[in-house]
Structure formats: structure tokens, C-alpha cells
């Protein structure tokens, strides 16, 4: 029931994830942060099987951190995405696979370009200008097809993001509650209040 989406613009990537934790028909939590900060310029939002998500996200978080400590520099977005995909792909054919869907946003300082990756629990990886997961994706993707602009400023990007959130709120039977929004750009990662 969770919903997450992301979009890139002129020098930034925005990720938004719903903060409601649901179990069966009950809302258990209204302030869950499903976007992890993996590095100075790398963020990851996740959804899926409740136990798996946190376990997997923390595993990823610590290993990316370990790489940074060992090598004195952070993994670039494309490398992080490839490594993450491999973890999921290997997990898929193990005895108990993680059921976690991921959006990875990062800013590559070497090329000064933002990157957004869509990844599902099977380990399908693709680099996209905008992406969505969960039931919300059925409404949000068509909206982004129409309104996404790769050259949009942060304000324009946030405007598009608000449109997406409003549309999900309007059309989806279950309300998603509040969203947490994080942006990554040349200055690093920030939380944005909509």
C-alpha cells in the first residue's frame, strides 16, 4: 500500500515516500521515514515486505558507509546502483529473498549530473528521468509523462511532485497520509517540507 516516487530535474533528484506504515487494515505509524541517506550525495527510498525493507536498507546503508571509510570517497551513483542490484539479484535466488523495491537518487560530482534509478525486488535496474512504485505509480507515471521537465528548477520540480501527491490522494482508495521528501544535489541531501 506504500507509495514512492522520484524525479530528476536541473541538477537535482527528488524522492518522495509515504510515511504511513500499514498492517492489514490498520495504520500503525504516521511518521515512518522510508528514505535512507546512503552517502553525502546518495539517497534511497524503499518499500515492500515490512521486515525485509528495514533489514535490507540497513545492510545497504552500512556497506556503502564501509566502502566510503575504506576508500576515502563515496561510491558514485551508477556504481552504487550496480552493487545494490547485485545484492538483490543474488538474494532473489537464495533460500529467503528480500522483497524490497527501491528508488535510488544520487548526484554525481564527477559529471555534475543527477541520477535516478528504479529497481524492483527481482533486481531489475533501470536509469530513468522519473520513476514510481506502489499503487500510486498507476496514477503518477502518466502525470509525470505529461508534466516532467528535465530542465526544471527545484521549485518547478516540487510543484510537479505536489501534483503527483495530490493526484494519488484524490484517486487512490486508501489515503497515503503525509509524505517525506528528500532532495539530493551538488550541496548534498536535504529534507524538504512540502
Amino acid at each position, binding site marked *: 500500500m506504500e507509495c514512492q516516487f522520484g524525479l530528476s530535474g536541473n541538477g537535482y533528484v527528488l524522492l518522495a515516500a509515504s510515511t504511513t506504515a500499514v498492517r492489514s487494515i490498520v495504520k500503525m505509524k504516521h511518521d515512518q521515514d522510508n528514505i535512507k541517506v546512503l552517502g553525502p550525495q546518495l539517497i534511497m527510498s524503499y518499500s515492500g515486505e515490512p521486515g525485509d525493507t528495514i533489514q535490507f536498507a540497513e545492510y545497504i546503508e552500512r556497506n556503502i558507509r564501509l566502502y566510503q571509510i575504506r576508500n576515502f570517497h563515496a561510491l558514485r551513483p551508477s556504481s552504487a546502483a550496480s552493487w545494490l*542490484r547485485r545484492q*538483490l*539479484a543474488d538474494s*532473489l*535466488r537464495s533460500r529467503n529473498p528480500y522483497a524490497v523495491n527501491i528508488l535510488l537518487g544520487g548526484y554525481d560530482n564527477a559529471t555534475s549530473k543527477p541520477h535516478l534509478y*528504479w529497481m*524492483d525486488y*527481482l*533486481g*531489475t*535496474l*533501470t536509469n*530513468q528521468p522519473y*520513476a514510481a512504485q506502489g499503487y500510486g*505509480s*498507476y496514477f503518477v*507515471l502518466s502525470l509525470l509523462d505529461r508534466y516532467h521537465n528535465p530542465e526544471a528548477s527545484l521549485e518547478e520540480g516540487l510543484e510537479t511532485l505536489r501534483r503527483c501527491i495530490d493526484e494519488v490522494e484524490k484517486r487512490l482508495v486508501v489515503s497515503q497520509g503525509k509524505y517525506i521528501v528528500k532532495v539530493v544535489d551538488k550541496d548534498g541531501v536535504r529534507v524538504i517540507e512540502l
Partner: protein
Amino acid sequence: MQYNGGSIVAMVGKNCVAIASDLRLGNQALTIATDFEKVFPITDRIYLGMAGLATDVLTLRERFRFRVNMYSIKEEREIEPKTLAQLVSSTLYERRFGPYFIEPIIAGLTDSSKGSQPFIASADLIGCLNFAKDFVVVGTAEDKLLGVAEGLWEPDLEPEDLFETISQTLLNAVDRDAFSGWGAVVHVITPDKVITRTLKGRMD
């Protein structure tokens, strides 16, 4: 096999081969990406295409790159298309009872010192090879592709004519398939160069 969608076709011409794929990546009926390539260069005259489960396409691309590199280092020469076909077959059969869900196509030219013969082959998901003299098809539109190719293909086509034939075959077949489409990429391999073109199709 139907989960992500996608189709590939390869054809033999006169001293050349062509391989083409669509560009869609879906989740069942929902299209996720329209720039997902399924055909990869193995050497500069051999291309390998994989249709099926996208995660396995990506995993096997890495795995084949590793195995082909190991071959080149051990043998100190480039791999031949028919050797690659056997390598692909045995890699897939290794997972006989828990397979990778992909169907591969190999298209390439044999070593120029031995006359640069065109070569195509396909296999099923557990590595049963099919060496064809005319064309091979795999993917969600394989039934349609087979029909169109049967009607359009003729022997000894020159590179430009082969390009036209394979492009029309693919484009017209994927238009009748809900899981394939969103444009195509075509590689025509000739003894002195590879011509790669990206096509637009019915973008819906």
C-alpha cells in the same frame, strides 16, 4: 517470460548478419522504461541478445562478459560465434532445474581469416540450441515475428536491404504484441563495420 516483455530477431544476409530488439521494459502491462536494450556486443563482430526476465538479462550480461573474458585470456584469441553458442548453452544448462528465465540469440561473423561466414543461433531457457540458416526469433512476440519473417526474408540480402527487412519484420510484429514495442534498435554486422540504428515505432 511474459513478466517484463520484449522481443529479439536475428537474420542472415550476404556476408552479413543483423540482430534487432525492441526497447520496452514492463512490469506486466505497466511500462517502466522505453530505453531498455537487450542486445549486447560480445566482441566487435558478435552480438548476443537476451529476451525474458530483465533481472536475468542483466545478471547474464555480466556473467557472459566474465566468461568470454576468461576464454580470451586462456585461449589468447577472440571467441568464435559457434563457441559462444556452446558457452551460452552450457551456462544455461548449468541451471537446468532452476533456470535463468531468458532466451538468447547469438548473431555474428566467423573469423575473417576463415572467410567471415554469417552465423546465427538461438536457444531456449535451458540452453537447447537452434542453429538456423535464415532467421531466429525469441521473446513475447516470437509467434508474430516468425510469421512476418517467413514472409519478408529472402536469401543473400545486402546489408542495407537486410536492415530494411529486419526492421520491418520487428516493427510489424511488435505492433501486434502488447508486451513488446516502444521503438527498436538494429545492429547490422558486416566484415568491416557494425551499423547500429535506433528506430521509432508506434510509441504506444
